[in-house]
């Protein structure tokens, strides 16, 4: 039997973590069927797509996704070095971008590809 419970998903530098509810002060940013979760300098974005519209919220620089139906998280890239896609279960997710410590700037920075 397939596991339909929302799970933590890592897709390259993108991490989606299911949470039980949105933060109180979350603001609706957009409703969409296709959202670029992480932009890539080389055009190889990490994209979440669903057949139904879903909601993107922001609060204090963080992004949240409220997905009502199944979604597909995929890498807009082909050939080698492609992150395999994941089926994303309906839930509310907090989006985290992986970080790396920059010894030149002496601080954590979001990973960019």
């Amino acid at each position, binding site marked *: 039997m397939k596991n339909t419970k929302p*799970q*933590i*998903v*890592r*897709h*390259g*530098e993108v*991490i989606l*973590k299911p949470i039980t509810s949105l933060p109180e002060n979350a603001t609706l940013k957009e409703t969409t069927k296709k959202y670029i979760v992480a932009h890539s*300098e*080389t*055009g190889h974005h990490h994209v979440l797509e669903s057949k139904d519209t879903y909601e993107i919220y922001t609060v204090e620089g963080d992004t949240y996704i409220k997905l009502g139906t199944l979604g597909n998280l995929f890498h807009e*890239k*082909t*050939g*080698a*070095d*492609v*992150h*395999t*896609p*994941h089926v994303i279960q309906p839930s509310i997710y907090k989006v*985290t971008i*992986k*970080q*790396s*410590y*920059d*010894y*030149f700037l002496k601080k*954590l*920075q979001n*990973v*960019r*590809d």
Partner: protein
Amino acid sequence: MITQLTKKQKDAIIPYREYWIDRIFRTEQTDDEIKKNIKKLYTMVGLEQPKEVWIMDSMFGVQVAINFLKNNGLELSNICSNIDSNICSNIYNNIDSNICSNIYNNIRSNIYNNIYNNIYNNIYNNICSNIDSNIDSNIYNNIYNNICSNIDSNIDSNIYNNIYNNKLKYFGFSLNEATWLHWYIYQKYYFDNGLLLEDKYSQQLNAYIEMCIDAWAVYYSPNIAIVSRKPVLKRENDRLHSDQVPAVSFKDGYELYYLDGVHFEKELWEKVVSEKMSFKEIMAIDISDRRTVALKYNHQAILNEGAILIHKDDRKNELYLIKNKEINKELEENKIWFLKMTCPTGRIFIEGVPPEEAEKNPNATAMQALLCGLTIEDYINMKMES
């Protein structure tokens, strides 16, 4: 309804695809033929032919030309979507319904996957979108490199003032081969291999392919069409790649450097392929994909710094420490910690770890969890990772 392909039809699929990929990258028509074909294309979609068709030596040159004309008051409007949608509704849709009613589903999807998807991936995903996004994102920097530094002394002051001082703006254009040809070559297979009989739509299809196959990128406007010549491309494993020469070079000297499909500025590309980069130089690269390629070409850099493996886990995370080395003085850090990890795609990444955290818990799993913004428990239990 055709329910199966003959052996001959099956065997023809891959060579057919390879022939067309090769043809798309090659220019066979003369400049005059390209100009005539572009004019014919306007007629095909019911538009008045443009008075001028300019052929520029690169996609960058097309952008310079559009900027120059706009800055000098010429009315330009991008009508490529009108042209594309007209061709789509008058040719593609008619043939597509013919294919759907005559060819069984499984056959269609086999041909679709092998021809349509493969050409799209080869031409658009790996080539055109890379070049286009590079021109889009670097267009202003490229003014200096391609105009000012090369021809500054000769450049007409009018061009200089209009383009340099006003800065270049990016204008979308139609990447004919990329955006559309994979659709039409997919359909052409059915006619060329006896699955559909020639008809008026197949004639229009052949005419359309002939009209746009040697126009690499086109800015279509009512009075003028501006076309780019094709670049010379170096590819390996269907990705732009060369560690010897620019992977993309246009006739006017506009060049782009790629390794394993990742774009590099020339200066950094030269450093990477020299295989003499230091660990510090690699860590200073801000884009992780570039850092990964740099590490691949300069794998000795870590060993040269005398990094010590402190801990590794069963998820291919390795925590390293560098201390008492020259780099510690340069970065004013007594201890430099970093994770070396193999991504599920097979690439090796290195990422810095906050020294105070690594000092408290010198554990590769814990540091990976920290960088992912997860608790150790969440990270260990995470099953969906790619």
